[in-house]
């Protein structure tokens, strides 16, 4: 895939954010994912060229981080937290349920390319356990059934909105652009906080 002049200008502006260009590797890799869906050789070589590095230096970085994918993931990438707390609270059951429901193993992608599945580590939402992420948006307090409904809604092309996130679920590529630091204008969407986040404040206002 060729990058448009606009893409190249965006990549240039990403590089310019930093006092030293090499720092831009990570956002540029996110950006490649926003265009291609994963990190391919062309992307690595392009980044190497833009930053005057060897391709090996870029791939060394790309392979270190789990969010950079080596092959295409689904339009909706679903991560089920199976770190201890979520696993105990139901994450294990949810992950098993989704594997069976979608007919996938860990890191698998459905044939229609809509959904991919991964078990993930703690996502800083333990007070909402068990947690499922889709394109790195929060789906809080899931059950096996709600998770199945969620992936069904994705496959039908009308994904349920995140619990704490934008009003609609953006695609994997769109989310990757956000992670590359590109403002998609959706920051104001969604709740400012979920119930558990506000619990202490609420109780305190009740006078405790």
């Amino acid at each position, binding site marked *: 895939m060729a990058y448009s002049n606009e893409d190249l200008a965006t990549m240039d502006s990403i590089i310019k954010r930093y006092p030293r260009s090499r720092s831009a590797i990570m956002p540029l890799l*996110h950006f490649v994912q926003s265009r291609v869906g994963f990190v391919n050789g062309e992307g690595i070589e392009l980044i190497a060229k833009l930053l005057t590095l060897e391709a090996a230096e870029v791939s060394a970085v790309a392979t270190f981080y789990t969010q950079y994918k080596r092959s295409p993931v689904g339009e909706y990438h679903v991560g089920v937290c199976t770190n201890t707390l979520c696993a105990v609270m139901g994450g294990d059951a949810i992950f098993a349920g989704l594997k069976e429901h979608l007919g996938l193993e860990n890191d698998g992608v459905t044939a229609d390319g809509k959904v991919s599945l991964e078990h993930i580590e703690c996502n*800083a939402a*333990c007070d*909402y356990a068990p947690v499922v*992420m889709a394109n790195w948006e929060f789906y809080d307090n899931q059950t096996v059934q709600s998770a199945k409904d969620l992936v069904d809604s994705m496959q039908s092309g009308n994904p349920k909105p995140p619990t704490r996130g934008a009003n609609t679920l953006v695609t994997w590529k769109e989310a990757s652009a956000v*992670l590359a630091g590109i403002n998609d204008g959706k920051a104001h969407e969604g709740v400012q906080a979920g119930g558990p*986040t506000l619990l202490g404040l609420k*109780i305190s206002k009740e006078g405790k």
Partner: protein
Amino acid sequence: MRQLVPVLSAHWDEKDSFTIEAYTRHGGYKAAQKALAMDPDAVIQLVKDSGLRGRGGAGFPTGMKWGFIPQGDNKAHYLVVNADESEPGTCKDMPLLMANPHVLIEGCIIACHAIRAKYAFIYIRGEVTHIVRRVNQAIEDAYKAGHLGNGVEIVLHVGAGAYICGEETALLDSLEGFRGQPRLRPPFPAIAGLYAMPTVVNNVESIASVPAIILNGAQWYQSMGTEKSKGTTLYSLSGHVKNPGQFEAPLGITLRELLELAGGIRDGHRLKFWTPGGSSTPIFTDAHLDIPLDYEGVAAAGSMLGTKALQIFDETTSIVRAVLRWTEFYKHESCGKCTPCREGTWWLVQILRDLDAGVGTEEDLNKLLDICDNIAGRSFCALADGAVAPIISSLQYFRQEYLDQLANKGPLFDPMDSTLFASSKAGA
């Protein structure tokens, strides 16, 4: 005295709490204005006097850290905010940034002034799309409002899935565009940090605590908390409590008190074990309910306050399964640089999988402990110390359960019993 004192969280319940308008409405950016009019050293002194300690885990005094930055050295200085929040159980910085990113930006402006930095970087973990949006927007809005761009620049840097990048030197390497592996210390970041320049690395909550301190004074902050652990902080309760969530309280509150506020352990169950500050802090049991949750109190009881991530497990939870899961996490997140952690976690997982399956002998428990002894304090960074903490502490409190599991030649618990949907068995 009231048990809960919302400072950071005071306005989170407003619908648009994350906007610059809401923040300004509640006096936002006044602290920055005040601090910018002060001598930088006076700001540092004030933060020192407040007794604020780092909320990233180690509890290092924040003002003292700022004071380590060499002054008048004609070098660029940097502030780096650690928003990597990946320690299992830890879930305070992300909701803070979702509900009120501007308090962090204001904190950055003040900290940059104090340490004479022109650039602040916010390194946020990558798996949080919406929070990235909020912080990015907040930065844009702060530029528009003129709070940024007149002496302080903030760059948001999004991670890509690596727990180790929360370790401050690995974070710096990652931010420089390298693999996120820890650096040799010395030199410490205060001398040679980002781009080999003097750098302060602080947790989100630490920096976010600063504006209120500037506005209300050191005295005010000092007045809360315990002798050596001052101020208020976010305690995060999760797991088998009736009402999990964030509780902002002065340091020193106990789990018993917090549990009471959270409605107690879920109905019909009792506390089995808990972590005081994330999975890297040795676990506690119901014998530790009254320990003051401040830096000294928790340390005296053999663990660490860490990130105040209180993960609560009731009696339906298998300790062996819980520890196995944590160990798998550390194996997955070990950066690979040093031998004890890389190879050790690989081995520990294999042994724990056997023990979870009820395979092994008592001798294996001793072997497990001995391997932990060869890893802890032998590794390059503290990740590996965290990795063995659950194993060693669980064997301290629950050795018999390990043995019972072996005698049973298999798991003693039905995992379904501990799920959120256990009662309904909805997940079955």
